């Protein structure tokens, strides 16, 4: 009996260890941490064989140069291949260290990939299917080629990837930066059947700038938003938090900084086959700048300024809504989301030809309410 129990214990131990243990021991210095990935379509000159489609660029830190090394703190390298997985296995043929994607912060898509539906669909499937990629990396579109980003030498940061990710994380303080993680990107593409708004990253010599966003329809880039429109996009999709709005009142430009920015949608009526949607926006914040010597702590004046801000929000919003309805002809501003969640029966009836319905039969009205709570330190 004792022997049997012993045997059972050993069997149980072997089961837990052999069937479920972690057997993938790789020492930390044998890993090559990939901090950013850039994806372009391969240029003719780069082709090794004619089937090559992608150029994947990687950036990894040179770990012993990070603190006080004379050399560069990061290196970039690229591979040209037919698919993601082939590219990655090709890297194993070239480097002794193993790529580790657990700390990848950014993924950059070149403009040409975004313009080609087939290329984009293939690469997205490859990346989202492969288990080693990190789903919370930030996604960007780069006008021109993505590998250009890796030539930037950041002014204050040793490493490129945390620098760019740091800009994205500023989206709490400025509404002009759109924050999009890779998993959100995949979800949005799935939900919108190929529609996407993705932040645009413009590389320069010593810095990069998040400047507006690219708009995709049916897995294809159809246009860009400028950075003011990107802010309005954030307002309309309820992603804005902090940020600034500039208005001119009495020939004095003043800045309203909002700390909270809430958008709510309601459907007041349905008439003549048209759906009327109200976007109610509520913002709270402070006046940051006016003019020396002018009394600002005056209810009437503050009310007028807030009217001015409300008007600006409404105007800008309606301009962008118009752009989406008439120029892009795609609903990425939350109306579909609202209808499918809160009016499912109604949505069922229009689901099949939604895009046409959106451009013709949905009327969106924006109503803003602005509360100015503070006026700064001086009276």
């Amino acid at each position: 009996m004792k022997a049997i129990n012993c045997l059972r214990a050993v069997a149980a131990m072997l089961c837990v260890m052999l069937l479920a243990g972690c057997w993938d021991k790789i020492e930390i210095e044998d890993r090559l941490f990939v901090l950013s990935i850039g994806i372009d379509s391969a240029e003719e000159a780069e082709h090794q064989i004619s089937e090559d489609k992608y150029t994947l660029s990687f950036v990894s830190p040179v770990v012993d140069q990070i603190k006080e090394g004379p050399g560069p703190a990061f290196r970039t390298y690229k591979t040209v291949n037919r698919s993601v997985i082939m590219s990655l296995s090709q890297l194993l043929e070239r480097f002794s260290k193993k790529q580790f994607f657990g700390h990848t912060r950014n993924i950059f898509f070149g403009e040409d990939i975004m313009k080609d539906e087939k290329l984009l669909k293939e690469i997205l499937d490859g990346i989202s299917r492969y288990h080693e990629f990190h789903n919370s990396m930030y996604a960007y579109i780069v006008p021109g080629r993505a590998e250009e980003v890796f030539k930037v030498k950041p002014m204050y940061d040793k490493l490129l990837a945390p620098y760019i990710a740091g800009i994205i994380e500023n989206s709490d303080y400025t509404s002009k930066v759109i924050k999009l993680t890779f998993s959100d990107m995949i979800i949005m593409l799935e939900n919108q059947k190929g529609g996407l708004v993705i932040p645009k990253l413009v590389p320069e010599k010593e810095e990069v700038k998040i400047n507006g966003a690219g708009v995709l329809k049916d897995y294809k880039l159809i246009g860009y938003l400028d950075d003011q429109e990107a802010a309005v996009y954030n307002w309309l999709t309820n992603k804005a938090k902090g940020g600034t709005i500039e208005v001119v009142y009495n020939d004095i430009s003043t800045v309203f900084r909002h700390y909270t920015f809430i958008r709510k949608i309601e459907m007041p009526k349905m008439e003549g086959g048209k759906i009327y949607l109200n976007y109610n926006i509520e913002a709270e914040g402070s006046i940051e700048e006016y003019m020396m010597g002018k009394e600002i702590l005056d209810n009437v004046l503050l009310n007028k300024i807030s009217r001015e801000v409300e008007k600006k929000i409404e105007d800008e919003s309606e301009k962008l809504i118009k752009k989406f309805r008439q120029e892009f002809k795609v609903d990425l501003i939350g109306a579909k989301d609202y209808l499918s969640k809160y009016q499912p029966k109604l949505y069922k009836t229009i689901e099949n030809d939604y895009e046409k319905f959106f451009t013709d039969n949905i009327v969106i009205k924006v109503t803003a309410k602005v509360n100015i709570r503070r006026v700064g330190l001086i009276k």
Partner: protein
Amino acid sequence: MGFFSKKKSGNVKKEKEMGKLINSRNLDENTRRLKERLKDCDDIVYKEFRVGEKQNLRFLLVYIDGMSSRDLLNVSVLNSLMVHAREVPPEATEPGDELFKLVRYGGLPASELADKDNLEDAVLAILIGDAVLFIDSTEKCIIIGAKGWPMRGVSEPNTEALIRGPRDGFTETFRINTALVRRRIRDSRLKLKQLSVGKRSFTDVGIMYIEDIAEPELLEEVFRRINTIDIDAIIESGYIEQLIEDNYLSPFPQISVTERPDEVAASLYEGRVAILVDNSPFALIVPTTLNSLFQSPEDYYDRWYVASILRFIRYMASILSLVLPASYIAVTSFHPGILPAKLVISMAAARQGIPFPVLIEAFIMEVTFELLREAGLRLPVPIGSAIGIVGGIVIGTAAVDAGIVSPIMVIIVAITAISSFSIPNYSLSVGFRMLRFSLMFLAGILGLYGIMLGVLLIASHLVKLKSFGIPYMSPYVSFVGSDYKDTVVRVPIFLMGKRPAQIARNRIRLKNNRNLINRLEQEGSDDKE
């Protein structure tokens, strides 16, 4: 029948061995027998002297030089019998029982006297440091309590120093130790049962308890276990501890050891039982729980939140000392994804060029540290500081400069060492140290999964472990609310109204006086108005 006869003959033999040898009436015969029994014991003093007008009353005083107090013997035996008897001659002029009675009940101004007619008892009394007075023509001898050997004074316990609290600690002398405890419990219900353990050493073992608080079953169990001990000698209380503990394979101490009489007293008031052993300044306390090993007497002397913070730190320290090196190994070799990117990169940078895997590196450093600790312990104090310097340079700087270990590993080992020193109980920290090494190996093979396996094994061992019938994890295994008041958080003393439910009976300890104090304050302020 054969069985019985065997047993009987065994008994007879035993009686002879025990030497139920009645003293002879003849002093010379007694001397001869004693000298034969205590042959080649050159430290025994046979002092023969005569008293009386005719110098016909013969006495023999036997004691071991160095173990009995000469002053006491001089004053209360020799002086009183020889000098005073000359000033006032004794009424008994002839040797015999009359003389014995006179001496026994009036002649010896010593506080501790007993009479025996058995040579073996006399020999034992001599061996434990008493003096024995033989009188010619009677078979009785008088045992004079004259124990007085060189002993260390009561001093501050080295291993359990406190900021706040009494400074006295146990010594090697049993009687002083019992007195130190009794001074703190002036209750007739404090009992001290003395046993003598060891066939050759006859070591005094005292079992102390408070009669109406300690559970009778616990007491019975303690006596039963001690009575099973059959050993030639008890050198230190550690012998008793190892002979009566529940699980000899467990890395956790199931009996707590203390040098502090205040801790013993406090434990007795909680219903525990203390075992004091002669020749050892360490008292044993049973039953012991894991929770009680994290407590320090200071916790009760300081204000409650100070104690609670310190306890929290101790629990944290024990967890760190158990899993820190193992987690470092697991994270660096298996799961670099769970740390922030910047930290991982700086860790990878620190590991650059180190020739060993993390597991080996950690093992080298931990073993070096253990060596240093052990060496520092053995060395005399003046040289001990040299070890600190060597250790600081060897582990700290040279190993890193030589590229054998990474600086982060040095930090990990240092934090682990500091943590293991902040566990108040030494044996517990040794247990954690042992488990730490096994967890390191598990982490090196299986990563975090291995650590979890190891922790699960330890946890399942802990919940199964018992100390004298009390679950080792109590009060965490029970649902008695009042017991939780003295765990990680030590509540203010006025709320600790009850003794631990698992251990004690008669549980009410104090009444909450807070409302009385507040009421008086209120009345005082009302008066002012």
